[in-house]
C-alpha cells in the first residue's frame, strides 16, 4: 500500500535564534551548545524579551498545512481527512486539529489528533495513509510542536545543571505538513511502506512531559524529564532495526538508498547515529537532516526533513526515514521512492 506525496510545507516562527542569542538569554555557553548539543539555530514562537507568545501551535500547524496545500495545488475542499500529531496542543479541548481545519476552511471530513512526540509524524502518516482510498483520496498530515508552555523565563539559569539547561537549547518550535493522495495517476514521490510500532514493553520512559491542571498545578513536579543516557543508548539500535526492517520490506539493498532521513534528536546525536548506520549498513545515501538548523521540534521534524528532501529527488531515488520516540519507546519509519 502506498500513496503519493503531492506537496509539503513548513512553518518556522520568526527569525532563527543562534547560540549566541540563546546563550545570552539562558546563560549558556554557545561553545558548549555547539560541541555537546550540535544545534546551531532554532525558532521560537515566544518573544524571549517579553515572554509573549507570538505563534501558537495552531498558528504554526495552520501555516504549514496551508503551505503544503499550496505546494500540492490542492484546495481545502479536496481534503478528505486531516491528521495532526503534536505533543504540545494549545488546549486539551478543543483539539488543535479542528482549530487548524477551521483556519484552513476544511469541513465535513474526519480529523484526528495524535498525542505523540518524535514518532508522531510517522504515526500520522501511517494513520492518514490508511484513511485514504480511491473514493476519499486526499489527506493533509501535519506535525507541530511548540515549547512555549515549557519555557520558564524567570529562572536562575546560571545555577541550573546541564541536564536541565539542555532543555532550553535543544528544542525549537515549528510545524511541517504533507499532502498525500491515494488516487491513481498522481505524479510525485510514492510513500510507503510506513511502519509504526510500540516497542517499550517493560522499558522505562526515556522522556516524560507532565501536564498539570487546577488540581495538581502546585505539585512541584518538574514538567520535563529526560534520561539522556537511556536515549543515547537506545535510539541508535532502534533506528538500525527500523532501517533493517524497511529494507527487508521494500527489498531495497541498503547500498541502493539515495537518501537517509535519520532520527533528529540534536545535531550531535543525529550525526553520531547517522555515522553508525552508515558504517553498519554500508550506506552511501545522502543524509537529509534539519535539527541543527531548526532545533528539535518533535512532531514537525520528519516533515521538515521531507520538505528538504523533495526538491532533491530525481526519478529512481529511494529514501528511508527513521524516527524513534524515546518517551515510552516507539519505533517508526517509512520508505519513499521517486518513480
Amino acid at each position, binding site marked *: 500500500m502506498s500513496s503519493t506525496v503531492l506537496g509539503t*510545507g513548513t512553518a518556522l516562527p520568526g527569525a532563527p535564534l543562534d547560540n549566541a542569542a540563546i546563550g545570552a538569554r539562558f546563560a549558556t555557553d554557545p561553545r558548549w551548545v555547539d560541541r555537546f548539543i550540535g544545534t546551531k539555530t532554532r525558532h521560537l514562537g515566544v518573544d524571549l524579551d517579553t515572554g509573549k507568545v507570538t505563534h501558537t501551535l495552531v498558528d504554526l500547524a495552520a501555516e504549514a498545512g496551508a*503551505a503544503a496545500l499550496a505546494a500540492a495545488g490542492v484546495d481545502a*475542499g479536496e481534503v478528505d481527512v486531516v491528521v495532526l500529531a503534536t505533543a504540545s496542543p494549545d488546549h486539551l479541548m478543543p483539539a488543535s486539529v479542528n482549530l487548524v481545519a477551521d483556519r484552513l476552511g476544511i469541513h*465535513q471530513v474526519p480529523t484526528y489528533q495524535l498525542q505523540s512526540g518524535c514518532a508522531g509524524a510517522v504515526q500520522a502518516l501511517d494513520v492518514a495513509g490508511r484513511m485514504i482510498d480511491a473514493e*476519499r483520496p486526499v489527506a493533509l498530515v501535519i506535525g507541530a510542536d511548540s515549547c512555549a508552555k515549557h519555557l520558564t523565563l524567570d529562572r536562575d539559569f546560571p545555577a541550573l545543571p546541564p541536564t536541565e539547561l539542555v532543555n532550553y537549547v535543544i528544542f525549537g518550535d515549528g510545524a511541517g505538513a504533507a499532502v498525500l493522495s491515494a488516487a491513481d495517476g498522481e505524479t510525485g514521490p510514492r510513500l510507503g511502506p510506513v511502519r509504526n510500532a510500540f516497542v517499550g514493553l517493560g522499558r522505562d520512559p526515556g522522556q516524560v512531559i507532565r501536564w498539570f491542571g487546577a488540581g495538581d498545578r502546585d505539585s512541584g513536579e518538574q514538567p520535563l524529564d529526560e534520561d539522556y543516557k537511556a536515549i543515547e543508548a537506545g535510539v541508535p539500535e532502534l533506528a538500525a532495526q527500523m532501517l533493517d526492517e524497511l529494507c527487508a520490506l521494500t527489498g531495497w539493498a541498503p547500498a541502493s538508498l539515495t537518501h537517509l532521513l535519520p532520527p533528529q534528536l540534536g545535531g550531535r546525536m543525529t550525526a553520531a547515529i547517522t555515522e553508525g548506520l552508515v558504517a553498519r549498513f554500508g550506506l552511501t545515501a545522502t543524509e537529509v537532516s534539519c535539527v541543527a538548523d531548526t532545533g528539535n521540534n518533535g512532531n514537525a521534524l520528519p516533515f521538515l526533513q521531507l520538505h528538504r528532501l523533495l526538491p532533491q529527488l530525481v526519478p529512481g531515488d529511494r529514501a528511508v526515514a527513521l524516527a524513534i520516540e524515546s518517551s515510552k519507546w516507539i519505533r517508526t519509519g517509512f520508505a519513499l521512492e521517486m518513480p
Partner: protein
Amino acid sequence: MTIPVAVVGMDCRLPGAPDLAAFHRLLLEGRTVAGPVPDDRWGPDDESPAGTHSPGGFLDDAASFDHGFFGIAPAEAAAMDPQQRLLLQTTWRAVEDSGVSPRALAGTETSVHVGVMSSEWGTLHLADHRAMTAHRGSGNGYCMAANRLSYHLDLKGPSLAVDSACSSSLVAVHLAATALRAGEVDTAIAAGVNLILTPALSVFYASAGLAAADGRCKPFAAAADGIGRGEGVGVVVLRRLDDALRDGQPVHAVIDGGAVGSDGRSNGLTAPNRFAQAEVIRRAHRSGGISADDVAFVEGHGTGTKLGDMIEVRALGDVHGGRQAPMLLGSVKANLGHLEGAAGITGLIKACLALEHRVLPPTPGGPENPELRLAEHGLRLAAAPVRLPSGTLRAGVSSFGLGGTNAHLVLSSPPPRRTPAGSPDDAVVLVSGGASRHSLQAGLRELAAAVRAEPPARRGRIAWTTTQVRTGHRHRFAVAATVEGLPAALDTALAALDGAPEPERPRTPSIALTFTGQGSPYPGMAVPLYRHCPPFRAHLDAASEAVGAVGGATVTGLLLGGADLTPTAVAQPALFAVGYALAATLRDAGVHPRVLLGHSVGEFAAACLAGVFTLEEAGGLVAARGALMQALPTGGAMLSVRADEPRIREILGAAMPDVAALNGPQATVLSGDGEALTKAADALTAAGLRCTPLAVSHAFHSRLMAPVVEEFRERAGAVPARPLQVPLASTVRGALLPAGTVLDADYWADQLCAPVRFTEAAAHLADPTHVVEAGPRPVLLGLLRQAGVATGTGLACVPGPNADGTELAEVLAALHHDGLDPDWSALFAPAHRVLHRIPGYVFDTRNRFWFAANGNTDALAAGTPPPPLQSARPAVETPTPDIPASDVPALVATDAAAAVLTALSEVSGHATGALVPHARLDDDLGFDSVMAMRLADELEPRLGEPLDVEALLPHLTTVASLIDHLETRLGGPAGEGVPA
C-alpha cells in the same frame, strides 16, 4: 454528446447574504432568513387582504446603487427598476469572478439571458400615463433588464428576458447554455432577479392557500405548510468547457445537459404534473449522457407545499426509484424562500457551490414528511451537511413554473486542476481600481484580506488575477512586492491612499528609456533583481551568454559572486548585460519607449533595443570594446569639474585636456594622461572650481583611446549596419537621430574618443511623461534632475546597492498607475499565472434610490398626480461626485454658469457639487440625448433666448465647455475663471 458548458463566474445578492461567499456560509450553517416586510415596501398598517403581511426573505438595502460607476445620472437611476440596478452590479462582479475584466467583454459575442417574472416597479411607476417620462420608459420592462446589461457592458450577442414564471432563471440558464453549444456566442451571461415591491403575489398565495404562515418554505418536511417568498439576484457566466479550460478560467461546475418542457394540458393551468416533470428529468439525463444512478444529489424545486412536494418526489421517484444508494435531495428554498424569477438560478448556484466544495449544504426545514416515503423513491433528504465523495460528481437542478414550464439541468463537478504554487520570492504587482476613491479603498481592503488568507506561495495568483480583472478604472492602483511581502506592501499602500491627491484622467504615458554609462557598476549589482524577478533573470542569462566569458567567468557568475567590476573589460559587458536585461524585460511587458538615450557605452544596449544589433552582435561588440580598452596602457585619468566647458577652457587655455563628457551645465569631465590632469586639477582648483578625480584605469573618451579605434571600427564593420527602429538621443552626436538612421561602424568608432554629449542629447527628453533608467543605479536621472531638462517622472529600475529586487516590478506598477496597461504575463512566472477567485468589485452603497414608503401605491390608486419621481428625489441621498472635486477652482458664478449648473442639476439629478468643470457629461454624469433636449428647455428661459439643440450638441462635452460656449454666445466673461 452534448457540449459541456462551464460555470466560470458567479455572484449573487440574497437575503442575509450580500455576496457569494456569504451565501455559501449561510448555506453551510443552514440559516433561514424569513423576516417581516420591511418598512420601505408597504406599510405595516396596510389593511389589504390576507397575505399582505406574510413574512419573507427580503434583501437588505435594495435601494442602494452605484450609479456613478455605470455613468448613469441620478435622475435616470431613480427611474430605473431596482431589479435592473441589482443586475448591473451583480453581473459586473460575476464576470470578474470568471477571471475576466468586464471591460474585456466589450464588443464580444456575449449573450444575456435574464429570468424575471415580476416588474412591480413598473406596476408602481407606469400606471399613471400622465407621469410618464423617458427614463421611466427605459427604466422598466423585462426586456430592459437584459438589454441594459448588454448596453452597459457593450455585449453584442443576443439579449433577452425570459419569463416562464418560477422557472424563468433556470430556463434562462438553459437557453444561455444552448446558445453556447450552438456556437452562437462564446460567452453567455444568465441571470435571475426578483424584488417584492407590492403584496400582490403574497395575497395570491394566501388566497390560494399556498402561503406558509412563518414565511418559510419547508421543502419535503413534515412541517411544510406552503410558500414563503424571497428576493434576490443571481448571475452566472458560462463558457464552453473547452474554451474555459483553454483560457485558464476557474470552473465552479459544469453543465452537462438540460431540458425544458411543459406540462401541456394537465389537470389545470397551474397544477404541477408528475409525468411531465419526470419526462423533463429523463430528457435532461439523456442530454447529459448520464443515468439516474450517476446523480449524487438533486437541488429540487421544493416549494414546500404538500401537493407540490408530493408530485415532485413522485416524479423523482419515477426516475430514481430503482437506485442502489439513495439520492440526496434538498432545496435552497428552505433557506431563502421562493425567489420566483430568481429561484432557479439560486438553486443552480447552490448546486455549483456544493459540487465545487464537495459538501451538500443542509435543507433546514425540519424532519422529512413521512407521507412522501422518500426512501421508497430512492431519495434521502439532506437535513444535515453531507460530504460528497471525490471523483466526478453529478447533480441535478429542478425548477418548475406555475404555468407548467419545467426545467432540469444536469451538472458535474469541475475537472480536477492541480496547479502547484510558485515561488514566494518572486516580485509581482497587484493592481486594483475603482470609479471612486471610496470604492478603490473598500475593494483594496477586501483584496488585502484575501491575500492575507492565502498561503504565501499562492498570493502571486491573486496578484495575477487582479491584473486580468481589476483594470481600466478611473482610480488606478498598483503595488509591487514579493509574493510573500504582498500583505505588508498592501497595508502600506492602503495607508498612503488616505489623503493622496485625486488622480487625473490617466493617459498613456510616453516614455524615454535611458541606459546608464561607465562608473555605475558595483559588485553584486542587480543581483536582488536576479533573485526576485524571473524574466529579468532569463534576459540577464541570455545577455551573459551573448557577451561570452569575461575575466574567466560569465557576467552572471561575476555578479552573483560579488566580483570586482572595476576592470573595464568586465565593467562594460556587465553594464551592457544588466541594461539590456532590464530594458528587454520592460519591452516584453509592453513598455515601448518613444525615445532612447544611452550614456556612452550605454548606447550599445539602447541600439540593441532599437533593432540596430541582435543581442549576440551587441554582446560581442561590447566585450571586444572592453577588452581592447583594457589592453591599452594604464595611467590615464579623468577629472570631473563643476563648471561648463568654456569656463574651463578659459582657465586652462592651451593646457586644456580632452573633454570626455558634457554631463550638464555645471558638470564637465576631462580626460587625458595622469600628469596633465593633475596639473589641470591644480589650476582649476586654484580658480575656485570643484574638481573630483574619477577612479578609472584609463582615459576614456580621449585621444588616448585612438590606438584601438581602427580595430574596433573593423569589428563593428563586420556587423550589419541596421537602421534605428526607435529614435535615439545620441550622446555621440549630441542630437536626436530619428528612426531610420543607420548607425554604422564609423558611429561606434567615433564614440571611443568623442566626448559624451549628454546635455545636448538630454534636451530631447523634454517631452516624455516618464524617464526610465535601465542601469545599476540612477546616475542619469540625477544628471537630468540637475540639468532640469526632463520634467517627466523619473523611474529607476535598480536604485543602487540597497535594491531589494522588487524595483523593476515597481517601475511597471508606477507606469500602470499612470496609465500604461502592461502585458503582465511578461512579469509573472507561469506558476503565478493561474486565475484565482478574488473578492468582487465593491460598489459604492452611499447613493440610494427608492420610492417613498407608505402611500405611494395609494397615491397611484387614487389617481392623484403620482409622487414617484418627486418622492424618489428626497430618497436620493446626496449623490456623491465620483469626479475628482479637490484641487479644482470653484466656478465663478456668472449668470451663464449659474444657469448651466442649475439646469444640469435639474435635468440629471446630480447635486451641483458634483458638476465640477472637467466632469464629462456623458461618461461622468450619465448625460443622454433625452437629457440634452430637456437641458435646452431648462436653459432657454434662464438665458432669455432660444437655443438650438443641434448647435449646442458639439459643446456638450464637459461642464466647463458648455459654460464656456454659452458665455461666449452671450458675450459674457468668456472662460474667465472657468478652467477648461
